[in-house]
């Protein structure tokens, strides 16, 4: 996978993850072009499109579009399920996730993604294992915070 973008129906980027080195300018241009292309598509259209030399796989969940760019030999359907699994992870962590959760806790969205995908490849596909890792980290936070609250 080369990158993943999350954006709203209004075209606002909510999360961007780049797995290939690109300049800031290129990233902005790609996001702009792609957001425009995808928002212009009708609901029943297929979830895949050829874009430059990449395959784009996208799916809309409520008000958010999840969009991945994969290489030519990559499998579109399994990428679609990568997106779904990520949505499930967010949903489980935040408890029926909505766009606001991702806006206000963007750093968590990045942490969860890093546990799930690394370098553009699936690192851990088990929902349980990913959430366990995140919760352990949260626990570490609480431990280090506890003294602050009680003293």
């Amino acid at each position, binding site marked *: 996978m080369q990158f993943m973008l999350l954006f709203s129906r209004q075209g606002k*980027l909510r*999360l*961007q993850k780049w*797995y290939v*080195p690109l300049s800031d300018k290129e990233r*902005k241009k790609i996001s702009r072009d792609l957001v425009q292309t995808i928002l212009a598509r*009708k609901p*029943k*259209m*297929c*979830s*895949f*499109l*050829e874009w430059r*030399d990449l395959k784009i796989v996208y799916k809309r969940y409520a008000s958010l579009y999840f969009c991945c760019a994969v290489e*030519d*030999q990559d*499998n*579109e*359907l*399994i990428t*679609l*399920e*990568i997106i*779904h*699994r990520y949505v499930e992870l967010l949903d489980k962590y*935040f*408890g029926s996730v*909505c766009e*606001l959760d991702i*806006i*206000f*806790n*963007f*750093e*968590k969205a*990045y*942490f969860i993604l*890093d546990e799930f995908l*690394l*370098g*553009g*490849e*699936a*690192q*851990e*596909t*088990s*929902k*349980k*294992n990913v959430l366990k*890792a995140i919760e*352990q*980290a*949260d626990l*570490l*936070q*609480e431990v*280090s*915070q506890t003294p602050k609250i009680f003293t």
Partner: protein
Amino acid sequence: MPAVSKGDGMRGLAVFISDIRNCKSKEAEIKRINKELANIRSKFKGDKALDGYSKKKYVCKLLFIFLLGHDIDFGHMEAVNLLSSNKYTEKQIGYLFISVLVNSNSELIRLINNAIKNDLSSRNPTFMCLALHCIANVGSREMAEAFASEIPRILVAGDTMDSVKQSAALCLLRLYKTSPDLVLMGEWTSRVVHLLNDQHMGVVTAAISLITCLSQKNPDEFKTCVSLAVSRLSRIVSSASTDLQDYTYYFVPAPWLSCKLLRLLQCYPPPEDGAVKGRLVECLETILNKAQEPPKSKKVQHSNAKNAILFEAISLIIHYDSEPNLLVRACNQLGQFLQHRETNLRYLALESMCTLASSEFSHEAVKTHIETVINALKTERDVSVRQRAADLLYAMCDRSNAKQIVAEMLSYLETADYSIREEMVLKVAILAEKYAVDYSWYVDTILNLIRIAGDYVSEEVWYRVIQIVINRDDVQGYAAKTVFEALQAPACHENMVKVGGYILGEFGNLIAGDPRSSPLVQFNLLHSKFHLCSVPTRALLLSAYIKFINLFPETKATIQEVLRCDSQIRNSDVELQQRAVEYLKLSSIASTDVLATVLEEMPPFPERESSILAKLKKKKGPGAVSVTELEDNKREGGELNGGGDRGPDTAAMAASNASTPSPSADLLGIRSAAPVGAPPASTGSLLVDVFSEAGPAAPSAAVNDDGFLRDLEQPTETSDSLLVEGSGDSDSAPPSEDPAPPLSEADELLNKFVCKNNGVLFENQLLQIGIKSEYRQNLGRMYLFYGNKTSVQFASFTTTVSCPGDLQSQLNVQTKPVEPLVEGGAQIQQVLNIECLTDFSDAPLLNIKFRYGGALQNLTLKLPVTINKFFQPTEMSSHDFFQRWKQLSQPQQEAQKIFKANHSMDTEVLKAKLLGLGTALLDNVDPNPENYVCAGVIQTKSQQVGCLLRLEPNAQAQMYRLTLRCSKDSVSRRLCELLAQQF
């Protein structure tokens, strides 16, 4: 759970995000952000040391601002400080900031690497993972240098936690992708491959991505992975849906891992070991079988995961291309998907079938779905699906269904989306050519194509139809008749006019017998389109007209009338004006014989790959033109253009070429390196002179194959760079009054004049310089014509001729100053008198300076005065020649070069060049009739230098050996140098 309560909840951050969200306008948002940035900056700069929490909060705010799309130029140091915090949450935010915001060349990289190093050696798995994630996210070369050797160790160590192994594997993959030279697996290879056997499915899932990438680059070292992958796959495929617990996804066991295993196997040929292969085939069959079973869930995730594996398995089957049974089963399975209600599946089935169509085992099976695919092309609502359908039709096309497919594609074109029209046009054109059984069908198809989608018909397409018509006698009459009819439509596309003009100009005579298409009717029909066309098309039509004069003498008066009218002969477009003038002159001064030679029918084009195919490949990348392309060539042997031995007659080609300049020149293909496009604008009488010299005799026309057209074309190439130089001069340093150094291409320009005396020496967008020269004994006279191509006056126009260095004592050049003003469109002349005192090697320099619109133009050229200009030819017998040859036997008297042919090796061309050199070309002297020998005396004031020349071509090797023997060694060397550039 309310959103903000998760984790540590930085209140300040949440407030800031709310503020931003409440901003009513972009301006308000920017204002709020600037306020925040100022606040953070002052906090970071303040004397009071910030506590970790505040630092984390501010760094997180900066990150948020950056992700909104604003630039962040500070805070990096604070983020790096967070890395060494012992509080996990601070460290984590620090790493996130670094991952998102630090680019590879940051100076901070050393500090960051230190922090990472500490975390990697901390033995705390959570910290180790954070550090590995950071490396994987940044993936810079500096990080590869620092960690590429450490990470494999972590990956294979026995005591590494599973989660760390997973991160290490993918971290290494990322480093390998950025810096493959730094990631050396060596001793680790086998242990990494054995990760495929790991008990932990997550470790296998992560490791297999790394192994796949490494296998692609070093298949031999990793080939043991094949059997491991097969057994792992087999275990997954045969497991019940509950066996793999959390790795089962909607009742599908380990879909991601399965896909990756199948993908890994595609890096290798089918396993050689029979048992392994048998097991794999079993797996593939099971996957195909499972696809047929009733779904275990109605959720789309279930079917997607299942079908993801199926498509990957089909990819592997296609990759092996050795199991007819599996290929046909795959094809049938995909056939079912073609009518599935899920758009995604229809799309993928069409895509996958494209590759199946190229396998000989499944090509026929794919073809049975033609009706469904045509239907998809007509009815799919999503353009990307229609595009796939069009691709598949193209891939499944063969002789048996070509007419149907081409007809369907043509009718689809009428309503096709703009985005895919051009590609569709190319595909139709290729199929029509490849499967043409009769050429009338081909011609009809292409003309239809132009009619339906004229705007999308690229030059390659109409060039190609002309190439084919010219190369096939049997279709020429039909083509002429068809274009004639097509042109009768009240509104026809300009591309139709181009094809019509070209074909009627060549083959109008084939239909002239019918009074309904008599010569005059043809001419009037073409000319009725003239005024609506663009300049290049008009130029082409003018060439068609002159061809008409040759084909049909009875049209001469009418056409001359047209050429003579002011709108042609005084056209503001120089190209059109030039053609009108030249053609009018040609038609009035040349005899019918000369006219017939110059305007002869175009010779057949050399056989080569279709230019359209090349274009499609370029458009879609090499993979796009499917394997059928190659296979068909194998099967059928490109027949449309069959018979590659009809080489063009060079002299005739040159003549035809001279009569129809560049828009047709690119069609010719013999000069593929020549720049395409309009020839340079040129004014004045000069070109008429050159032209009249080019016309009549065949040998001189042959010279012009190399000289004349090059003159026309070359300058366009050089003009751009020059203008850059010129303007660079004027806006960098204050205009220098020193003569500019000679142009980089000055030598090249000089070389073009070694064997001829007249032509265009130089041309850019402002100025054209023409030359005529004559020499007698040791004296020469050169006329320089400076043409102002612009409509603006050149001021302070001065020219200086200088003889640098030794040349001063060798050559005497005298001239008078020229008028300092050159009006727009005007031409001025300068005469140089040249005297050769003794032999010389360098060329005199011509410096030209003038002001154009205030900017100083300053350029220096080499004047084409070369030692050979002072040759007197000497006729001698074979006996005399060899006697003198022997007399000049001192080693330094001889100069020899062996070189590759750069130009045509045609006899007439060579002879013309050698004559142009100024020597006598001696017949029956060399025992080998293939060789050329020449003799001459160079006349200088101080002495005469006798020269003998021998040129031995080797047509097979496309090489020459050139030998010169002269009574003066410096002359031998110089002549050898000059001449080696000419052939």
